[in-house]
């Protein structure tokens, strides 16, 4: 082979260029701390990384959803606790009021406290979370109850929040479960003095109480209770009127209402526990995907640094040999 100047120069330039590309890409890895800086560096890893990033984004979003649902359910839980306490007090007051030893004056006091309690319940039922009536279902711009005696304005729809790729969690409790009589099984009972009382829950969630005389045909009174709040108010009314028969008839709703609260409390408690678990699980998932992402896209600094040192050494060798070759010419020896 007839080697000549052009070939030598080209070879040196080409080798220098190659080394420079190598050192540039190593340096890029070092500054970005990433192994893959563009799709063409490694298409399959880049796509994997993109998918991991979406998974991570989803995990972040689920965690945010959980935070939001958690805040809402904790608020509901507080209201339920208040309701639970207050039903205990209603129970106490009613039993006290029904007691034969009480007179009409003390029953008036019971009546006025019950009236207050009904108002307090109305307040809880109409409580707002972030500007929305929390117990109205989807119709959160409307108060569930416009007054103590009004019927339910909300609906029974669940607000679903996704907490992972496959499942939703109901983040609200609708007022119908807490304040209406949908679950009240129709029944009848006979009082100590032989009166018959019939309970019939209605389609609209209200409750009809029919008090019949001892003959079980003559209807003494029919009471329509729109909601448990209305029930407490009617109870107060009965005490005010010193009508023990009526108070006894209405008293039946107290244990039902309290039970409804307890069921919801249990549900909410279980949900909060589930959210906590799910959050932990998402933290783990997050960690797994971060690790996977790091595996495909992060540069091994030690490796890159040693690669740079290697390239540098060969670059120096190349420069040295180049300078040696350049200084070699016959012309130098012709003097």
């Amino acid at each position, binding site marked *: 082979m007839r080697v000549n*100047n052009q070939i030598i120069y080209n070879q040196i330039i080409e080798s220098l260029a190659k080394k420079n590309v190598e050192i540039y890409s190593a340096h890029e890895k070092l500054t970005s701390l990433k192994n893959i800086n563009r799709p063409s560096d490694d298409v399959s890893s880049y796509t994997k990384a993109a998918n991991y990033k*979406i998974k991570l984004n989803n995990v972040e979003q689920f965690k945010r959803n959980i935070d939001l649902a958690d805040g809402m359910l904790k608020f509901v839980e507080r209201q339920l606790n208040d309701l639970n306490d207050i039903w205990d007090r209603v129970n106490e007051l009613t039993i006290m009021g029904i007691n034969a030893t009480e007179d009409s004056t003390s029953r008036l006091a019971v009546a006025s406290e019950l009236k207050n309690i009904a108002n307090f319940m109305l307040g809880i039922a109409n409580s707002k979370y972030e500007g929305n009536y929390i117990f109205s279902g989807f119709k*959160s711009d409307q108060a569930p109850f416009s007054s103590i005696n009004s019927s339910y304005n909300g609906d029974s729809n669940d*607000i679903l929040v996704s907490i992972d790729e496959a499942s939703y969690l109901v983040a609200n409790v609708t007022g119908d479960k807490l304040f209406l009589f949908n679950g009240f099984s129709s029944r009848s009972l006979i009082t100590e003095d032989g009166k018959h009382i019939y309970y019939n829950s209605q389609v609209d969630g209200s409750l009809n109480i029919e008090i019949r005389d001892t003959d079980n045909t003559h209807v003494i009174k029919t009471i329509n209770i729109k909601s448990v709040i209305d029930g407490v108010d009617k109870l107060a009314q009965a005490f005010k009127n010193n009508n023990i028969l009526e108070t006894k008839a209405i008293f039946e709703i107290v244990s039902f209402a309290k039970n409804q609260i307890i069921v919801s409390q249990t549900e909410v408690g279980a949900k909060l526990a589930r959210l906590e678990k799910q959050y932990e699980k998402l933290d783990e998932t997050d960690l797994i995907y971060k690790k996977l992402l790091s595996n495909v896209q992060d540069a091994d600094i030690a490796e890159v640094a040693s690669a740079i040192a290697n390239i540098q050494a060969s670059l120096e060798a190349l420069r040295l040999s180049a300078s040696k070759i350049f200084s070699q010419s016959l012309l130098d020896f012709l003097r």
Partner: protein
Amino acid sequence: MSILSIFDIGKTALLTNQTAISVTSHNIANVNNPDYSRQEVILGVKAPIKIRGGYLGRGSNVDDIRRSYDKFLTDMLFSQESLLGRSVILKDIISEVEEFFNESNREGLNSVLNNFFNALEDLSINPSDMSKRIVLINRALELVSEFKDMETRLEDILNSVNNEISNAVGKINSISRDIAELNKKINQLEADGVSSANDLRDKRDSLLKELSKYVNINYYESNDKIFYVSVGMRNIVSGGNVSEMKFLKSSQRSVIKVENIDITDRITSGKISGLVTSEDLIKNEFLYKLRKLFGGFANQFNLIHRNGYDLNNNTNVNFFKPLTNIHFEVFSQNGAITSLNINDYNALKFDEYYINIKAGNIYEVVNKYNNQVITSGIYSSGSTISFDGIDVVISGPVADGDSFLISPLKLTIKDAALNIQNPEEIALASNVNSPSDNTNLLNLIDIKENSIGALGNKKIYDFLHDLTSRVGILAASANDNLSFDRTLYNEIFNRKSVVQGVNLDEEAVNLIKYQRAFEAAAKVIQVANELYETLVKLV
């Protein structure tokens, strides 16, 4: 014989060696010119004279100054130059496109889609939250503008590609003219049939090499010394004449013509080929898929959004401005499109179609990208042709070979905007009067998990990742091809250099060799002179 003849021999030796030194110097002077072919002096013996006792030499002369030239390697270098030219362009352009899709170190389509869906999901617990609704609208605006930016960037490249093709064609024509001029000069100089215009031939080779960068060429010299250069089987240079190459820009694809014959498909390498290929990739792959992605996504979002109720109990409202403007192009003398509408947004596929008219008044609707026939029938002027949710009415007499391009794709991103103005208009509920109803919102979020018909039954993110991977694969192979072609080029160049290149050491040796011979020749003349003087003194 006489003493004077010794002078003559000395003189020829002086001249020959002087010429040899000139050629050597010429070689040294051109040592760094890659297109230069080393020249060599071919020495000859001057015809001897007959004397008694034999023939007596009369000295030397220069028979030829020959160029070390290997036609095979030169041809290979030219074709490699073309391949390299194509690789360089493809690498440059695809790398640029790749950077647009590259989200390693910046936010891109993935991020805006994520942000959009996140903003939607943030509303799930409280769909009536105004501030979050405003965030969602802003995220949607960002999404639209990111798609528009991407489209603009790709179209900018497309424009510069078109400009470059036009420049390249101009350059090719100017090189062709230079070659034609050189052809004339070479023919003049070589008219004697003996001498060879070495340096002009080198210059012409250098022009051919330059030309090869732009386009793959063929060239040959006929027996009657006419030099031809052809591209795609059409001569662009025939001796001293030039046939200009022409570039026709078109919305579909660029066309290169020589003598009014389309040679685009016959250009397989060189810058022009790289540019035409890039144009095709950008138009028919990157822009096509980008527009399809946005169109498919926005349309699907609208379809579901329309099912929902907003805070004012309105329903059947689009979130994004729906596509209404369908782009079309008519390639027909007398036929015209008189009406073009979308009749069913559910069936819309976001593709491009040709309605081709065939012999016997038959029309055929063909998908431009996979050439699948979607529907066909007998053409009758003014009647509606329906396919993939689109109604087209073509009127007028059409002829066999006419075609109409229908593109519900071209303006999808250009016309994109939000249809809703106010945050309360986002329809997240499935029931009226239900501000906390997030049913439709959950359906909207599901879009990202469901496959979309218009996207070839792919999910949005999968479609986007497929597109990015495709860009990545193309960029990686463009990189590989470039480094392969460059290595091969250097290899061939070196092989050619082995024959044609100048070696300074060699030339230094030659220099000394001819210098010594020159000195000796001078000595011969001196000796002859002394002999002559001796004779003169005798008298």
